[in-house]
Each structure stands twice: as structure tokens, then as C-alpha cells.
């Protein structure tokens, strides 16, 4: 089966592309990025600010199960409804540098649409670090689960 979400990351480059085909008309796909309440639902984050306009900005905040808060923010460089969003993205209080994101929305048919996310990082090494985050977290989680089981056995 073909994967709906694809990642294209060439070796040694400081960029990557994420593409996804949605079983949704273009306007509904775009609405999911435009409407703060909807963004909160699918991103699993609190939207503190979302100015959908060129030279606007946004700020999200997520809380983990321990109550720790993590902030994310960026500047919206260009905002063209149903077509594109160009913005920066930064994880606050982390060593990770800001990244530049080009989001392009296009209709494939009346009922399907595609999102292309072109993300540019400061360096190739920085891109690779960010790419490996979910991998590292997965290992951490597996490790924690293992520890939980071991503790229960004691």
C-alpha cells in the first residue's frame, strides 16, 4: 500500500519535504491550518496566538502528562488563503535553531487535496538532529516502559 505521508530527505542537505494527500477538499484542508480551535485539536496543542496574515505571528503551547509546558512560536511571512503559508518555526528553550517552512496547498480533485511542506534548517546537522527526535523519543519511551515493567517485577 502506498503511504499517504511521505518524507523526502536527501543525505547531507539542510532541507526536507513532507507531502501528504488528503481525502478532503482544498478549503477544508486549509481551514485546518487557519482555524485556531481546529489547530488545537489535531496538533494537540494550545494556540495562544495565531495571526493569519502576512507579517503576523503565532505561538503554541503543549503540556505533557507531567504538566511540563513546551512553547513553540514563529512568524508568518506570507499568508495566501487556500494556497500557501510561509512561516518560521521555533521550539522555545531548546538548542534547536529556528526553521523556515513553505507550506503549499493544492487541490487534486474536488474531493482531494495535497499539502507540500518544504522545511529548511540552519544546517544539515541540525536537520538530522530534528529528524532523529521522534526516533530518540521512541527509544526513550521503550526504555521507560521497560523500566516500569522491571519495577513491577521487583
Amino acid at each position: 500500500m502506498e503511504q499517504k505521508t511521505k518524507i523526502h530527505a536527501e543525505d547531507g542537505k539542510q532541507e526536507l519535504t513532507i507531502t501528504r494527500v488528503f481525502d478532503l477538499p482544498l478549503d477544508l484542508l486549509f481551514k485546518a491550518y487557519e482555524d485556531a480551535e481546529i489547530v488545537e485539536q489535531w496538533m494537540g496543542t494550545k494556540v495562544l496566538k495565531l495571526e493569519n496574515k502576512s507579517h503576523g505571528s503565532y505561538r503554541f503551547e503543549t503540556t505533557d502528562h507531567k504538566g511540563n509546558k513546551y512553547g513553540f512560536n514563529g512568524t508568518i511571512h506570507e499568508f495566501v488563503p487556500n494556497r500557501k503559508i510561509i512561516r518560521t518555526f521555533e521550539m522555545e528553550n531548546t538548542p534547536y535553531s529556528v526553521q523556515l517552512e513553505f507550506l503549499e496547498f493544492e487541490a487534486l480533485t474536488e474531493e482531494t487535496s495535497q499539502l507540500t511542506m518544504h522545511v529548511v534548517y540552519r544546517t544539515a546537522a541540525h536537520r538530522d538532529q530534528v529528524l532523529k527526535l521522534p526516533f530518540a523519543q521512541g527509544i526513550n519511551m521503550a526504555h521507560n516502559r521497560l523500566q516500569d515493567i522491571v519495577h513491577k517485577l521487583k
Partner: protein
Amino acid sequence: MNLRRDVFQAIADPTRRAILLLVASQALTAGAIAANFDTARPTVSKHLQILTECELLKQEQNGREIYYQLNPQKMKEIADFLEPFRQLWDARFNKLESIMKKYKK
């Protein structure tokens, strides 16, 4: 955990990547590997040590010689490191899709 981090550090180095490519086709001795590089022999030895510690390379004693060969199991783990990143986005987008389908019609 630390071990895995080391794996990524190990493959971040171009010389070490070149070594992995060399031994991918056949097991080689340290001397045969070093002959492919302009760098000093101790430097190559250091690279081999790091790759072995990360389990990317396996050592095999053959008579008086030690041969280095690729550990395919470990290499496979690295090839898959992109997959969790893809799955993260896939899960997010699946959620977006199911939420937005309610707005349809």
C-alpha cells in the same frame, strides 16, 4: 540509549561512512581498510574502534588477522530512523483528516 546516540555520531563522520561502504562488500583487515585512506593509520584505527563499539562493525579472527565486517542488523536500525518521524506526521495528518471530515457536506 547512549549507544544509539553514538551510532548517529558514528555515521555523521564521512571517513566512517566510507569505511562502512568499503566493508559492505567484503570483510577486510584494518591494514586493507587503512590503505584506502590518506589519513594516518592510528586515525583509521580510532574510526574502526568507534564503529566496532557502536556494533556497526563486527570483528572476526581469521588466523593471525582480524577482519572487520558490517553488522547488517545494526545498519537496518539506522536506515529506519526516518520512519518514526514520518509516523509522527502521518498520525497528525490522519487526525486532521478525520476532524475535517466532520465539516464535510
